[in-house]
């Protein structure tokens, strides 16, 4: 354990913690833009600067390890002036399109602009120009809104292991793009979209749909594969309009292309919404109610077991069900029917 003082508060932080982590443990607020605890610190946005006793100039708390006896100041007029200038500089090279931007309400930059009350800008000047190349099916890139926090580049490299995008050029003309400024051609996992603090990256299918704030969220599990990633379904008027995932779950908020973007089937008219029963041999499948269906299944299973013994029945489930569902399924077969003939594609 390390003992340090932050804003006059005595704090205990675990060994290896950064100053930012220590402050967050103690619920002390420090603004950040390029930080995500799931990735290596980058130190680029300069918003998390703090003063540390004995050091001649402010340092970034996200990169500085906490040390025993350290005395940290996270806010004073000097630090706030520097932060405000930084945000003002960012906004001077930004379309300030919040009114029609998908990220409004969720945007870290918008939040900072609000926090520092930046209605006017002292630094109006040239802005970066970008040619949009977006023929890919999933991801919209509006690089003029990019603050170059590097989160997308880092997630694609460090987490996804793909490195489909990277930094290009330098200085004011710096850019995030696929090699040779081509269209994105990658896994389309959307991890980059998920970590982008601004509206620079977004899902194409989200455009014009209600913003996140307008939606209701439901926690659930992805039905696509045995990984069982946790999902948050965002619905509006009973329609799923976006899927996200929380960083504090077992998949740490990471999803794949199916989980993140493959949600349109939920509202498909071709999807079955009631059970179907074939009442006559050779006859059609007819919609039925759940009571009728479950009664039918129960009575047929009981009849088979009574006539041929429990081992005449076998149950096959799916890895795409949740653990809880599969648990209940095997319980029903073992305790309810009395057979061990139960299996699924990922094995019990």
């Amino acid at each position, binding site marked *: 354990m390390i003992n340090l003082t932050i804003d006059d508060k005595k704090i205990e932080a675990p060994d290896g913690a950064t100053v930012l982590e220590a402050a967050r443990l103690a619920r002390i607020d420090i603004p950040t833009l390029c930080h995500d605890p799931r990735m290596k610190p980058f130190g680029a946005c300069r918003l998390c600067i703090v003063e540390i006793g004995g050091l001649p100039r402010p340092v970034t708390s996200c990169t500085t390890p906490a040390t025993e006896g350290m005395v940290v100041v996270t806010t004073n007029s000097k630090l706030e002036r520097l932060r405000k200038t930084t945000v003002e500089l960012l906004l001077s090279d930004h379309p300030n399109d919040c009114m029609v931007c998908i990220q409004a309400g969720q945007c870290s930059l918008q939040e900072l602009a609000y926090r520092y009350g930046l209605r006017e800008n002292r630094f109006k000047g040239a802005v970066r120009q970008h040619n949009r190349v977006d023929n890919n099916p999933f991801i919209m890139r509006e690089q003029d809104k990019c603050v170059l926090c590097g989160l997308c580049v880092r997630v694609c490299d460090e987490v996804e292991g793909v490195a489909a995008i990277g930094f290009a050029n*330098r200085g004011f003309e710096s850019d995030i793009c696929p090699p040779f400024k081509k269209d994105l051609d990658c896994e389309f996992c959307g991890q980059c979209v998920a970590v982008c603090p601004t509206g620079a990256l977004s899902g194409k299918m989200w455009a014009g749909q209600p913003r996140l704030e307008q939606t209701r969220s439901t926690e659930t599990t992805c039905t696509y594969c045995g990984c069982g990633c946790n999902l948050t379904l965002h619905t509006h008027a009973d329609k799923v309009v976006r899927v996200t995932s929380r960083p504090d779950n077992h998949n740490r908020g990471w999803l794949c292309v199916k989980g993140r973007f493959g949600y349109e089937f939920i509202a498909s008219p071709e999807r079955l919404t009631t059970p179907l029963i074939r009442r006559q041999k050779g006859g059609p499948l007819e919609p039925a109610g759940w009571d009728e269906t479950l009664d039918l299944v129960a009575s047929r299973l009981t009849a088979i077991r009574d006539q041929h013994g429990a081992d005449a029945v076998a149950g096959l489930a799916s890895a795409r069900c949740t653990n809880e569902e599969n648990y209940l399924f095997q319980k029903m077969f073992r305790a309810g029917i009395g057979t061990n003939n139960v299996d699924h594609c990922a094995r019990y």
Partner: protein
Amino acid sequence: METQMEEVLEGIYQKTVAHGDNIITVLQEIQNAFGYVQEESVNWFSARTSIPASKFYGVITFYSQFHLTPRGKNIITVCSGTVCHVKGASRIISRIREDLKLGEDKATTKDMLFTLESVNCVGACSIAPVVVINEKVYGKMNPEKIAKTVKTYKE
């Protein structure tokens, strides 16, 4: 890709990556061999080394030494370092631009004979202003002198 080009690239691979050299060295070799860095050679190397093409592209666009388009036969580099600046580098540049009929945002002449570039100090400041043509250093230049010097490369 032509097999000839592939042979050159394989040669570069053996000379560099096989000895633990990094992609900056690889790109320097590619540029030495072809005069600029073509997309195909990056893709070839990316496949050969499993280093993502985005890393190559990031490096190429970061360092001013690398070029993605072909350059002229003669490279005229005008020093625009501090000393050359105060001693009139901009007048030399405008004279060369005029003589070679280069538009504002053009660096290479239509006939591909010359490319005009600038560099921040070649370390010969005491003979400023300095112009380097290919690898030859010309010191104490002025608009008249440079015009004459460039002419000798036209033949």
